């Protein structure tokens, strides 16, 4: 096939990008080469619209072993142990084929983690669907949940948490973000940087098929009417093969044969081989006839661009081929020596004894386009002034029922019961709490993980929203007694070519950066997903933040369920009554405008660290952060989980009851303490200048809000748990 500008444009390249390729090569590329350029230079692989801004993220810290730039980030959890983790999106494929799209998303992120030598020990996911009224929502949700479970369960990795939201802005473009944590010894981490000349390049795993060709390009294309034509690019996952691949790779990694290893993810063999060579400042030579293929007569173009799953590329030490082959044979996986490292600094491909591509690697990587896209700064919206009379005909009980049965608050048990969350025998906090917690096998340590996002806040004011998500992640870790260490981020946005969407991106990144710097909560890995939109409409800006923290003694882990009758319930952090963008304002008052709650990073840090101190001193019986739905929602969840009631004090605040109970001011937690510990707790909080107040006392069975308002916990529970089950049946 002849290559020209038109063909290049069909490959998703811009005309000027094509001219740049010809200039750099000083010739017209052939079709295989063009395919390689289109894969390497597309948004998904090159980060051409985001690179400039991602540089601003805060990525350094004492605990960071590896920041962004590798397959996944790595943090130090002491005693020679490290946690490898990352989150990644699989949005577009999941909309087209929810089961396979979600499944291969989970498979992909697990490969990123075990590529680095770590055994995956936990999965999480952040999934966002259109409004429940949308016809497609139910099937998409079912397919995605089955897909996530289908893959993760089969791999034998517990899914310990996640987040699920519904919003009409995802009607035509759902989000599926998958996160994995792996455990590795600090001195046994594997990287993707090739080194040394004439080292054998090995292909292992599944055979290469015609699936997913152009998958990476699809991830960067708008959804439009022509979607049908792009359909065959979806891949089918094979978790069984991945499980074998995991065991085989870990077996090989226990020795000293591997120089570098890289999974074949987006853009398959192309990006994996180029990345390894580029990092090592080497060339690479591949004989495509050696690549194990599933179909007959595959062309070099297809082999290079296939996104078949469950494959890895390894640079081995010379002479270790037989040893490695034995291991992969044992696990019944394909194994082939397909090439070697060279000093040409080019990627050279051979097929049927002819050289069919030869491109300098630096052109593909360093010379890839980078854009400073136009973006619009957003203004902080004006605050709403709610008149007193709009509250007067609201009944607090009705409001509470409506809020706790809201799709975005209600229990997600229907989802997480379909995920094996206990396999591996170390899950000490299941989904349903503030963070999932798993023990580090055979030690006293435990790792906590959470994934959060608040698209509504980000949409109202991206800078504040960006800060808020990081703060929420931090709080969810603190609430289980974990010291927050680092985050991973998955940035789901509309088109970077749209100034508004680009502005949302830039400012969310700024917010994330500011908060993570202040909280010493660096970003160690992540992923950008642009073009989440249907026609001209972008989704609400949705950065998902995956946070990881450490509990040094797992016996000190905290949970949110109320423990004992007569214990006192306190609120940490100040309630100012911020209703704008709260769930209450949006669904009860039907007010969608206004600024999100302000994030005061000083208070955030101070309150969180003080709470950790109380937990460390064994002063706390249960803890929960206050987020969506405010104080009363948080209390309800604690009552339901503990099967206890609460009698609330009359709020001393000057603001009205609704503002007090449903405001979404940040930096707050609810804690349970024994009455005899009150003095000591007060003393510590006062000393640290942490605002706190007593809100009630734990009783049996009922929530007593005031003299006139009482509701049983059983009733609240049925409101909270039934919505999703009923919706799905």
């Amino acid at each position, binding site marked *: 096939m002849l290559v020209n500008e038109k063909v290049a444009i069909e490959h998703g390249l811009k005309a000027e990008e094509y001219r740049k390729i010809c200039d750099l090569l000083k010739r017209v590329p052939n079709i295989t080469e063009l395919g390689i350029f289109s894969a390497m230079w597309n948004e998904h692989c090159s980060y051409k619209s985001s690179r400039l801004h991602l540089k601003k993220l805060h990525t350094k810290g004492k605990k960071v072993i590896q920041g962004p730039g590798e397959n996944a980030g790595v943090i130090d959890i002491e005693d020679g142990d490290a946690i490898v983790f990352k989150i990644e999106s699989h949005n577009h494929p999941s909309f087209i084929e929810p089961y396979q799209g979600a499944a291969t998303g989970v498979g992909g992120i697990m490969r990123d983690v075990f590529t680095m030598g770590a055994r995956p020990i936990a999965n999480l996911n952040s999934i966002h669907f259109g409004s429940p009224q949308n016809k497609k929502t139910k099937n998409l949700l079912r397919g995605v949940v089955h897909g996530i479970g289908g893959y993760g369960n089969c791999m034998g990795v517990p899914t310990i948490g996640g987040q699920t939201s519904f919003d009409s802005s995802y009607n035509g473009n759902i989000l599926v973000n998958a996160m994995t944590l792996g455990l590795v010894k600090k001195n046994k981490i594997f990287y993707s940087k090739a080194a040394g000349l004439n080292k054998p390049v090995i292909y292992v795993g599944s055979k290469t098929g015609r699936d997913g060709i152009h998958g990476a390009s699809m991830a960067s294309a708008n959804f439009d009417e022509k979607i049908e034509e792009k359909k065959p690019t979806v891949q089918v996952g094979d978790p069984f093969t991945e499980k*074998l691949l995991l065991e085989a790779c870990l077996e090989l990694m226990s020795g000293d044969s591997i120089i570098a290893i890289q999974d074949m993810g987006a853009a398959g063999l192309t990006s994996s081989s180029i990345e390894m060579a580029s990092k090592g400042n080497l060339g690479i030579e591949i004989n495509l006839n050696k690549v194990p293929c599933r179909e007959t007569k595959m062309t070099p173009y297809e082999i290079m661009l296939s996104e078949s799953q469950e494959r890895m590329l390894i640079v081995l030490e010379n002479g270790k081929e037989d040893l490695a082959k034995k291991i992969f044979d044992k696990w019944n996986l394909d194994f082939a020596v397909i090439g070697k490292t060279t000093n040409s600094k080019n990627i050279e491909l051979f097929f049927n004894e002819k050289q069919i591509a030869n491109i300098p690697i630096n052109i593909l990587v360093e010379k890839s386009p980078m854009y400073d896209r136009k973006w619009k700064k957003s203004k902080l919206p004006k605050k709403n002034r709610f008149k007193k009379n709009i509250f007067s005909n609201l009944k607090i009980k009705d409001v509470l029922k409506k809020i706790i049965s809201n799709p975005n608050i209600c229990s997600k048990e229907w989802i997480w019961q*379909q995920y094996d969350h206990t*396999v591996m025998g170390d899950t000490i906090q299941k989904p349903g709490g503030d963070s999932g917690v798993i023990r580090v096998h055979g030690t006293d340590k435990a790792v906590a993980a959470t994934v959060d996002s608040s698209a509504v806040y980000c949409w109202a004011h991206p800078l504040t929203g960006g800060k808020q998500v990081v703060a929420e992640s931090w709080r969810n870790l603190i609430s289980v007694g974990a010291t927050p260490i680092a985050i991973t981020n998955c940035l789901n946005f509309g088109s970077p070519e749209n100034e508004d969407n680009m502005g949302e991106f830039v400012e969310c990144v700024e917010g994330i950066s500011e908060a993570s710097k202040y909280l010493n909560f660096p970003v160690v890995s992540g992923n950008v997903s642009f073009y989440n939109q249907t026609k001209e409409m972008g989704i609400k800006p949705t950065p998902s933040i995956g946070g990881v923290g450490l509990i040094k003694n797992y016996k000190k882990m905290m949970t949110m369920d109320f423990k004992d009758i007569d214990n006192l319930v306190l609120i940490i952090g100040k309630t100012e009554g911020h209703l704008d963008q709260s769930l209450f304002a949006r669904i009860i008052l039907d007010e969608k405008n206004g600024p999100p709650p302000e994030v005061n990073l000083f208070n955030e840090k101070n309150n969180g660290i003080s709470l950790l101190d109380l937990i460390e001193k064994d002063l706390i019986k249960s803890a929960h952060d206050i987020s969506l739905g405010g104080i009363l929602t948080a209390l309800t969840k604690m009552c339901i989980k503990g099967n206890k009631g609460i009698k609330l004090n009359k709020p001393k605040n000057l603001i009205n009851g609704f503002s007090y109970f449903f405001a979404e001011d940040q930096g707050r937690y609810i804690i349970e303490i024994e009455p005899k510990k009150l003095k000591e707790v007060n003393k510590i909080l006062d000393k640290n200048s942490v605002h706190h107040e007593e809100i009630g006392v734990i009783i049996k069975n009922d929530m007593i809000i005031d003299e006139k308002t009482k509701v049983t916990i059983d009733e609240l529970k049925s409101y909270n748990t039934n919505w999703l089950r009923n919706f799905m049946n």
Partner: protein
Amino acid sequence: MKSSVITFPGSNCDRDMDVALKKFGFNNKMVWHDDIELPKSDLVVLPGGFSYGDYLRCGSMASKSKIMQSVINFAKSGGLVMGICNGFQILVESGLVPGVLLRNKYLEFICKNVFVKINNKDNPYFKNLNKEVFELHIAHNEGNYFCTRDQLKEIEDNNQIAIYYCNDNGETKEISNPNGSINNIAGIFNKEKNVLGMMPHPERMIDQSLSGEDGSIFFKNLINNIK
């Protein structure tokens, strides 16, 4: 006491079972599916997981693996063989215990704690237990036990039902049936009661920080019975 845990391609509770057996005093060995001989054992365990990806029918392909011939011979000679979850599915597929395990009635994978009632204590697994109702953990997609009417009658006549799903009071009503199993059956024996297949995972309940500790009671009792 010596035990062996078989690892099939796709097994994923093999390590958990190893940890549990060792914790309660077994000298456990891991055995690869491709081996032909079984090490000398007092107990052989087929662990949970997704052998061969659960493809075709759960347990069907594992039941054809090399080691299974030895496991079958071991069982036929009276040796204790226990299959948990996918292990139960393998037992069923290899004909060591009767019936089949179909897809869960509501077509969903279920991971949660359930209660089970012990039906028959006259066997090496449950002998001497002074507790009727256990809280155990299940995690499966195909645990819906099924057999023909005639088979059921035979199973009942031989007292082969090991455990039933029930509520915390030991009542075996349909509402406590998580997956549609016929008569709430959660585990069964072979005729001779030396082979036990069950869906719940006792190995996930061996520590108070986990989902519960009833698994510990089961294992402690088991090793004492074998001694």
